[in-house]
């Protein structure tokens, strides 16, 4: 008899623990109540299971009860952030101390050029070449340690950084070189792809791990922006408060604290993403859901206006960069929607909106691209035009095939998996393109 009762109570406890707002101690308290009630009812001659039913009924409807508890303990409905050692048993060791140590290393590394050089002109150049090189290897190292890579894998992870460091510093850049700027711009992205290898625990061929890296990148970016906002407020206030101390003190703070803070935040943001990935809802897919319909509307309207008014030809030749940015954003919307979407879910209205947004962006890009290529033929090839046009084509190929797959998925011709698979398969091409601009373009154009 008591066995039956215990199993009934177990079942009840499980059921109640599903309810939002009812915490562990609340359940314990309610259970004590339930047991006392059952004992009393049993004393008046009821069988335990009957007593159980009556006691549960008297306790009240669980939904009403959980609503009442939630009203009293509003904070419980939020996943509260708490530093390690807090109330999150599901995340085992969060490794904050380790992350902090790496953040300190990055913060110190970023100051090395300043400590080694005296002249400020040479310093600017050193930072232009090496800023990413001083920080991202630390991040790679951090992941290599967390994922316990073998010495061989660590060596493999080092190669891209070594090549990058060597080439950018030994290339004989010309005065006001545009390939130098392009390399400085593309190198951090190429290095970011290099971080993917240790992040994925060297399993770089795995589709799932690549998708994890995409998710990580999105969340990392959001955390970094948030930390940067907070850091901006901190530095702004510090500068104001230190003003009476004179410009020198203020400059010192800006010169030392800002770069070190920015470098350390790279590691801290990465740690936050990892520590919080199962605790806090991922933000990138949320933003994607909000902005995909807005982009779909904006892009459709603009595409129609372009087609009707023939604006494609009017475009300033330098603005191809804006269209690159547009395609990157559209690809991002696609990627982060895919990354959060359950594969088995059938096509829905969001997939159709997504399709509209991508098609409109492609139509717009096609209108501009034609006149862009004409101009390049007329005005000649420059490194900037090659880089911009090349990126545009790389993105265009991705999106055109993605649209084809997405349309077939919506038409129920294929499952969702190929749509995902295409994006993770394409990641190396994006990596190769950024590396090409950073390493091959400069010698091709004589470092001009």
């Amino acid at each position, binding site marked *: 008899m008591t066995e039956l009762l215990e199993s009934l109570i177990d079942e009840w406890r499980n059921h109640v623990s599903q309810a939002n707002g009812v915490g562990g101690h609340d359940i314990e*308290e309610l259970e*004590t109540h339930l047991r006392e009630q059952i004992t009393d009812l049993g004393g008046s001659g009821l069988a335990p299971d009957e007593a159980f039913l009556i006691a549960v009924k008297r306790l009240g409807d669980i939904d009403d009860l959980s609503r009442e508890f939630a009203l009293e303990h509003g904070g419980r409905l939020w996943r509260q952030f708490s530093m390690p050692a807090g109330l999150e048993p599901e995340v085992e060791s969060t490794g904050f101390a380790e992350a902090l140590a790496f953040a300190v290393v990055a913060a110190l590394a970023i100051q090395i050029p300043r400590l080694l050089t005296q002249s400020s002109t040479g310093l600017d150049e050193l930072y232009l070449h090496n800023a990413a090189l001083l920080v991202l290897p630390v991040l790679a190292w951090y992941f290599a340690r967390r994922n316990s890579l073998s010495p061989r894998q660590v060596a493999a992870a080092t190669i891209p950084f070594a090549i990058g460091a060597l080439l950018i510093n030994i290339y004989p850049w010309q005065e006001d070189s545009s390939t130098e700027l392009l390399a400085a711009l593309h190198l951090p992205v190429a290095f970011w792809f290099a971080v993917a290898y240790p992040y994925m625990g060297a399993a770089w061929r795995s589709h799932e791990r690549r998708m994890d890296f995409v998710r990580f990148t999105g969340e990392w970016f959001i955390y970094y922006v948030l930390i940067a906002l907070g850091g901006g407020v901190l530095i702004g206030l510090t500068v104001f408060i230190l003003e009476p101390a004179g410009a020198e003190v203020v400059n010192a703070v800006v010169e030392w604290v800002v770069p070190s803070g920015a470098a350390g935040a790279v590691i801290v943001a990465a740690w936050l993403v990892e520590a919080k990935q199962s605790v806090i809802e991922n933000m990138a897919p949320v933003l994607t859901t909000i902005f995909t319909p807005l982009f779909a509307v904006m892009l459709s309207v603009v595409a129609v206006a372009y087609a009707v008014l023939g604006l494609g030809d009017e475009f300033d030749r330098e603005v191809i960069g804006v269209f690159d940015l547009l395609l990157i954003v559209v690809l991002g919307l696609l990627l982060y929607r895919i990354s959060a979407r359950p594969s088995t879910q059938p096509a829905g209205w969001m997939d159709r909106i997504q399709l509209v947004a991508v098609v409109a962006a492609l139509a717009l890009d096609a209108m501009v691209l034609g006149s862009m290529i004409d101009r390049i033929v007329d005005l000649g090839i420059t490194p900037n035009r090659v880089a911009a046009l090349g990126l545009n084509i790389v993105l265009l190929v991705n999106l055109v095939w993605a649209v084809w797959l997405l349309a077939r998925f919506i038409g129920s011709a294929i499952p969702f998996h190929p749509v995902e698979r295409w994006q993770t398969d394409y990641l190396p091409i994006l990596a190769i393109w950024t590396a090409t601009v950073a390493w091959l373009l400069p010698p091709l154009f004589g470092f001009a």
Partner: protein
Amino acid sequence: MQIDKDLVAASATPLVLAILDEGESYGYAILKRVRELSDGEIEWTDGMLYPLLHRLHRLGYVTADWRTSEEGRRRKYYAITKEGRSALADQQRQWATVTSALDDLWQQLQVRHLVGEIS
């Protein structure tokens, strides 16, 4: 007789505080005391008592303390605090005002009915 839901809700706080003023107690015993006092007329949904107790705890009117009783049951015991007592005194004044106003009206009502019967 079924007591109106709003009235039950409004009277819950003074009832619980007054019962705790008799001495510290725990959820189940408080409910039993309420039933006993009202001869079973005041029926609470048992579970709802606990959010109320937690609210009183948050307001600092009661203290809460997990203890194991003599018969070996682990229970959360609640005891009234000084703030709780002054809140109870305040409640008492409010209820006294309401009941005395109602009493006056009940008496007048009775008088009117008597007069109505005579004439």
